[in-house]
């Protein structure tokens, strides 16, 4: 039967340390109480048993696994920085990127309607009064009598003074060679004061009637195709002359407006005129 002394003694046994002596009152009680003596023995044995637990060692790869774990936690935060540092051509990439940005800014910040190439001083399109080029300067654009001829302003009809002497003498061959300009390639390469235009970004050319007053001196071109083949003589840079015969190109309507022309298809068609 547990008395109050037994409870106090057991509490003291549980509270004391291994080598600590009990109080005199508890010691006297234990001497006369068998259950408390057994409790003291069991408690001491249990404490020795628990204290005898050997320390469990960490596995040999503990440090390595811990380092890997720490490295894995570091990686997401600095992944982009490491990628930036380990990129092989970072300076070159940065330089190219900055050049690209500067080029894009220069393209978008240029004044609207600018038709000049950087470095060229004169505007690409000039008024007929400024150009002063007679219509006869373009032999292929001779007006057909009795037809409505219109004048077309093109880039290649600009600034006659900037065209070299040989180009003025042979305008057709130069136009054929360059396709879009009567200017010699070597003249462009030398950086002469010749303007050009970008046809992709400009509106359609202004077409005016050649018969209007004041437009007689402007360059004109006929919309009617020539009935005879056009023979073009070209001379290349080496002095060799080539002759090309261009057949007349017609879309039909031009032939219709020409006087005295009747197609056989038109005659035989019962449904209409085509």
């Amino acid at each position: 039967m547990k008395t109050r002394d037994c409870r106090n003694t057991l509490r003291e046994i549980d509270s004391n340390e291994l080598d600590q002596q009990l109080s005199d009152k508890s010691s006297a009680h234990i001497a006369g109480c068998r259950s408390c003596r057994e409790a003291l023995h069991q408690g001491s044995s249990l404490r020795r048993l628990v204290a005898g637990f050997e320390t469990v060692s960490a596995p040999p790869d503990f440090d390595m696994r811990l380092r890997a774990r720490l490295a894995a936690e570091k990686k997401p935060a600095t992944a982009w920085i490491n990628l930036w540092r380990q990129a092989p051509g970072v300076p070159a990439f940065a330089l190219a990127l900055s050049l690209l940005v500067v080029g894009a800014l220069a393209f978008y910040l240029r004044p609207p309607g600018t038709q000049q190439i950087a470095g060229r001083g004169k505007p690409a399109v000039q008024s007929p009064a400024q150009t002063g080029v007679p219509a006869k300067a373009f032999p292929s654009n001779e007006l057909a009598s009795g037809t409505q001829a219109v004048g077309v302003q093109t880039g290649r009809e600009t600034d006659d003074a900037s065209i070299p002497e040989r180009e003025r003498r042979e305008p057709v061959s130069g136009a054929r060679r360059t396709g879009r300009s009567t200017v010699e390639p070597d003249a462009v390469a030398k950086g002469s004061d010749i303007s050009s235009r970008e046809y992709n970004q400009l509106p359609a050319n202004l077409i005016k009637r050649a018969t209007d007053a004041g437009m007689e001196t402007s360059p004109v071109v006929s919309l009617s195709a020539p009935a005879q083949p056009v023979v073009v003589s070209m001379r290349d840079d080496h002095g060799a002359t080539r002759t090309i015969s261009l057949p007349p190109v017609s879309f039909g309507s031009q032939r219709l407006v020409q006087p005295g022309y009747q197609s056989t298809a038109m005659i035989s068609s019962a449904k209409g005129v085509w």
Partner: protein
Amino acid sequence: MSTVTSLNELDFAGVLPAPVIERVSDHALLAASETGDEDAFAELVGRYRNQITSYIYRMTNDYEGAVDLAQETFVRVYRAASRYQTTHAFSTYIYRIATNLAISELRKRKRRRLVSMTGFFESHEGKEPTEFNPPDNRPLQDVALVDTERRTAVKRAISTLPEKYRAPLVLRDVEGKSYEEIAGILRTSEGTVKSRISRARGFLRDKMRNYL
């Protein structure tokens, strides 16, 4: 003319200077590791890895889980190195982290119902699941075998203690920490620690009555 018969006679110890071994404090090592000194942190890990692993193992009774939690303890120490305050000993600090992790793991296990099938029996006071551990009254065969059996029984008995009794008991009787240090680790008073330890020992004694 004297001849040298062994290398011991050369007395290198008297010629070479003795290596200077300085015990760097834990605070200094943690401060150095905060600045990126990996060697300092490795030294810190070397000092505490076995203690922390052993402590968590005694708390959870699962070695692999204890190793993982010990690593998590060091990871948290490394991450929170800048927030560490030197008002407490580093051992108190790291044991507190390990204790919190171990208790969290025990609570997770309880939620997952990962207690053993024999854990349906409940104790009288704590309403905690206790191991069904019937007394074995067969005659003892071997002292070593008996000792191993008793240790196993003690481990099981400790693992059935409630968390609030288990941690101070392990810290006091297994790890040998002082009451003051245990109070710092568990963030409670020394009186509470002594009371809980006394209760834990009483529980253990009752559970182990047939083995002692």
